[in-house]
């Protein structure tokens, strides 16, 4: 009953702080709109990945690998032309390349066959039947892929002509990617912005906690029979509801503007709920070290900045794994729950993966939430609730 009392009281206060609530709830939809405008007007760049499967040959006891030469040719072409929008990057294997294509980190993947050098060398030595294969992988319906593939094909043919002085020696095969490849750039940024809408909870939650300290009403609660858990739980519950409403509003705005999602909305709400709890737990740390709403707004800016720009929420972020746990990469950014939440939302909403594929992310969010809550709870109790 006490916890329900805290819930009702906290709900009333939250509704009546309508400016803070309004700003918090509107931040996600606003970002969706801004990113929509950015994506619609941004300058294109075409990222082409290359897997050099060429095994090469020995010529005059010297290794010869035309695959490597082709990669250098791509780079040189870029430098020569100057402001070309094509960027070629060599990667180790096909699966990595396909994963990047699915995540929209690249537009086309080129696989150079193992016999590339052998075939070119044979043609060079007047074997008119020698042919080599190059595989192009990508979303055949994507204009980015088509432009990348046309350019790369031209480059490959030009390289073959330069090397062998012969035409028509490269056979190009195209492998279309699955449905995920049909997702637009706008679709790709939506999971991050959904999490941005939850990051904004950091302020409303911290202010809700610290308001009791600022108004000194914490004294009344200390005198009463209310436990620390009931106090934090009651306020946290209302903030979680605010977070879920914020995510729903953000998602609705994204859908109205053309967002296509693949996976389960229920799963999305579960991820959003867990992430809300995590942000609320982190807010407890902010509330513990502050004494007023003004202080929250000043102090809270720093973690908000980290959460927004170093987790992949505001834009895709490349990060190197420090180590792996059961195959799941752990990065420095992994200490912030939005990193895992965005990964989980990408897997469900974009790649249509089921719950079993996001278990590592869910575990990471839960572990970090508990960690934040314990740290925040201890400091908050020590600073604001403990008898001296």
């Amino acid at each position: 009953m006490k916890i329900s009392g805290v819930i009702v009281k906290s709900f009333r206060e939250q509704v009546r702080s309508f400016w803070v609530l309004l700003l918090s709830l509107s931040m996600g939809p606003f970002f969706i709109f801004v990113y929509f405008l950015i994506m619609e007007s941004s300058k294109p760049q075409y990222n082409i990945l290359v897997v050099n499967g060429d095994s090469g040959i020995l010529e005059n006891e010297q290794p010869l690998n035309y695959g490597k030469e082709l990669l250098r040719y791509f780079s040189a072409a870029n430098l020569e032309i100057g402001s070309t929008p094509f960027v070629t990057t060599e990667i180790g294997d096909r699966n990595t390349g396909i994963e990047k294509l699915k995540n929209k980190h690249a537009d086309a993947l080129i696989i150079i066959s193992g016999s590339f050098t052998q075939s070119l060398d044979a043609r060079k030595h007047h074997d008119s039947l020698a042919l080599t294969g190059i595989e192009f992988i990508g979303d055949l319906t994507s204009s980015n892929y088509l432009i990348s593939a046309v350019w790369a094909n031209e480059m490959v043919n030009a390289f073959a002509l330069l090397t062998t002085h012969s035409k028509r020696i490269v056979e190009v095969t195209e492998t279309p990617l699955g449905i995920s490849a049909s997702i637009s750039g706008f679709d790709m940024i939506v999971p991050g912005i959904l999490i941005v809408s939850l990051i904004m909870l950091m302020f409303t939650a911290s202010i809700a906690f610290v308001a009791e300290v600022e108004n000194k009403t914490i004294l009344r609660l200390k005198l009463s029979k209310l436990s620390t858990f009931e106090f934090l739980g009651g306020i946290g519950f209302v903030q979680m509801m605010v977070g879920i409403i914020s995510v729903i509003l953000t998602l609705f705005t994204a859908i109205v503007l053309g967002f296509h999602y693949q996976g389960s909305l229920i799963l999305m709400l579960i991820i959003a709920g867990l992430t809300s709890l995590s942000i609320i737990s982190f807010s407890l740390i902010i509330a513990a070290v502050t004494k007023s709403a003004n202080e929250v707004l000043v102090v809270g800016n720093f973690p908000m900045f980290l959460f927004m720009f170093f987790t992949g929420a505001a834009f895709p972020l490349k990060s190197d794994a420090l180590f792996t746990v059961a195959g799941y990469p752990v990065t420095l950014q992994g200490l912030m729950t939005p990193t895992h939440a965005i990964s989980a939302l990408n897997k469900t909403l974009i790649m249509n993966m089921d719950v079993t594929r996001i278990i590592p992310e869910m575990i990471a969010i839960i572990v970090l939430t508990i960690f934040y809550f314990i740290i925040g709870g201890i400091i908050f109790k020590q600073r604001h609730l403990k008898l001296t």
Partner: protein
Amino acid sequence: MITITNLKKQFGDFTAVDGLSFGIHKKGIFGLLGPNGAGKTTTISMICGLLKPSGGTIVYDDFNGQGPKSLIGYCPQENIFYPKLTCFEQLLFIGQMYGIASKIIKPKALELLELLGLKDKTNERAGRLSGGMKRRLNICLALVHNPEILILDEPEAGLDPQSRILVRDFFSAFGSEKTVILTTHNMDEADRLADRIAIMDHGKLLLLDTPQNLKKTIGDGDILEIQFENGNEQQISQFAGKLGSLSLKMTTGPNFLLIKHPNVIEHLPAIKTMAEETGLIISEFKLRQNTLEDVFIHLTGRTLRQ
């Protein structure tokens, strides 16, 4: 009764309360007086359970084994409330925090709002109330869980005269059935309300008695100024000499005499007789009775405190 024995509180090297011992009766109004920094708020905070004593004990006898959280309602000096909740909503909320069922709190909240003149403001947000109304709401919040002991820190601060009378009557009625502990700088307030008064300074108890006894026994006493129609300074000095047998402190002037004594009224008939015997005609008596403030200043001095 509340029995406080050798109560101590230290903050680092600073001793805020130093071996305090006294008892507070179950019914009545107990005043705790002292200058700033005397240790009043620290003592009250320990009685409420907001501060842990460094030493000593506080025992709540005859309260059916209830702990301080249920027993005590605390009205701090500063108005503490939820500005965005209505008067009724916050009384309901605070009652719930004490684990009381809503069906019990609701009528209690309405009763308190009526008793303290806030019935019209039941559904008004607390942040929009006037200063005096906020003060009265603060008192309601201390009482909503029906405590046996009400602790008030400067309860009349910020109240207009009408509100002061209403609140004073309320405290008197409450104190006739339950226990009220109040701290105040307003000596008149303490004198009017309290049955027993403890004066403390530097964390120690200086004196504990009824206001009447304190005024009778402590300080320079009542001041009587006698103006004469006739006579000169020599006659007045002669008269003063006669009064010396009554052990009164006196100051003479050209046509007046000042007498200081803890209970000068008792000596008035004798003074009048002696004046007539000396041939002096009294034109005017001016009497200022010994006040609690005089007692307070006598005990604690005039030095300003931090």
